[in-house]
């Protein structure tokens, strides 16, 4: 669990007993003392476990856009110098500007299930970046992404991915919910294709999370937000719905059974997830403190928790029956 109290600085807590107790990292994520840019970490924003062959490894993304790694289950953390000290970092991260509301951050740490040294990350602001040597060197991967806020017609970086996902069974297929649309990439093409243009025009393709079916690389869910004029970041027209594609973004179907007919939900980029059921369960949390669940792949929803604080992240854990 990452934390930023706002007053005491960032840290990470870990629990080995299903959340009954929490232990703070003895060496939390931090930039190196005395480094040239004198950066200090303001928030730990994203946590991702390492490759299945590397138990105990975790990665953390922060604000500003630093990358950190733990090799002991989150007890101690070190900077990933290949990223944090990359000669292009200041340019890619638009340092020292922090153009994202509440601070630019590193998120969407994706590890290739075939190769622990092959990783993707997302920067807001900055774009998608890839390493093939375990984080030693990085390159931008943003061709095809719209970026009307940038002066160039096809810049290499400077984009605003909100959430990037790699399909676990087809890791050369990536999906991205960007500030400027929904995209899919076949890695060999090295080019994002805006599949969000296939969304209904009155809904648009702006949002924060994108979640993938654990077995079917053609199926994904998004939760659209109103991205028109002043960007209210709420359900378009006050009618909340998820949308599902079953054909890799060629078409999208509205999923609003059981959801309120009038509500202005905001769903953050980490606040949607899926399980591994035969009929995949889909879950999302709102900034107004509700968690909604669907056990039929999004067709119908029910609220399973309410009156919670603002929800930043929802994760699914498949517990052994003895632990339930």
């Amino acid at each position, binding site marked *: 669990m990452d934390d*930023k*109290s*706002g*007053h*005491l*600085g960032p*840290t990470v807590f870990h629990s080995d007993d299903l959340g009954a107790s929490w232990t*703070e990292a*003895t060496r*939390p994520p*931090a*930039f*190196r*003392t*005395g*480094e040239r840019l*004198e*950066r*200090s*970490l*303001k*928030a730990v*924003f994203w946590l991702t476990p390492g490759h299945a062959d590397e138990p105990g490894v975790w990665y953390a993304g922060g*604000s500003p856009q630093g990358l950190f790694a733990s090799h002991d289950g989150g007890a101690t953390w070190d900077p990933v110098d290949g990223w944090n000290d990359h000669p292009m970092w200041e340019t890619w991260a638009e340092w020292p500007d922090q153009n*994202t*509301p*509440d*601070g*630019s*951050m590193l998120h969407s740490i994706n590890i290739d299930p075939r190769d622990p040294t092959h990783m993707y990350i997302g920067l*807001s602001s900055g774009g998608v970046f890839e390493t093939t040597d375990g984080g030693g060197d990085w390159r931008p991967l943003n061709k095809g992404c719209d970026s009307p806020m940038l002066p160039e017609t096809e810049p290499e970086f400077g984009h*605003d991915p*909100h959430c990037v996902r790699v399909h676990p069974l087809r890791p050369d297929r990536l999906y991205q919910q960007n*500030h400027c649309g929904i995209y899919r990439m076949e890695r060999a093409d090295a080019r994002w294709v805006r599949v969000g243009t296939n969304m209904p025009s009155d809904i648009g393709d702006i949002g*924060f999370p994108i979640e993938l079916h654990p077995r079917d690389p053609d199926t994904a869910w998004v939760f659209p937000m109103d991205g028109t004029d002043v*960007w209210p*970041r709420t359900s378009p027209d006050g009618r909340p719905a998820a949308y599902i594609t079953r054909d890799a973004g060629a078409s999208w179907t509205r999923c609003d059974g059981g959801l309120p007919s009038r509500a202005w939900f*905001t769903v*953050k980029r980490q606040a949607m997830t899926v399980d591994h059921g035969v009929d995949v369960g889909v879950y999302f949390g709102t900034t107004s403190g509700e968690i909604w669940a669907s056990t039929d792949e999004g067709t119908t929803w029910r609220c399973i928790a309410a009156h919670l604080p603002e929800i*930043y992240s929802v994760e699914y854990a498949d517990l052994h029956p003895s632990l339930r």
Partner: protein
Amino acid sequence: MNVRIPTPLRSYTGQAKSVEASGGTVAEVLFDLDRQFSGLRFRVVDEQGRLRQHMKVFVNADMVRDLATAVCDTDEITLMQALSGGCGDTGRLPLS
């Protein structure tokens, strides 16, 4: 010298409201506190040694921002957390 601990940091001191620490400067006292109560210093200063925005340090009745400020055994140091916000960067995680 005596160091008074604010409530948000008492999880590091076993809920002690005040503790003893030594050092010739505020910075040295913070290092000594961290030696005794691991993790406490990083809640007061960031990785570049800068006092965190909402942390205040008083030497007796005087607020100091310079951690090189000299102190002696008869001084009393008070760590204080300044509360602020309701909006802005006082604890919210990024949205977009």
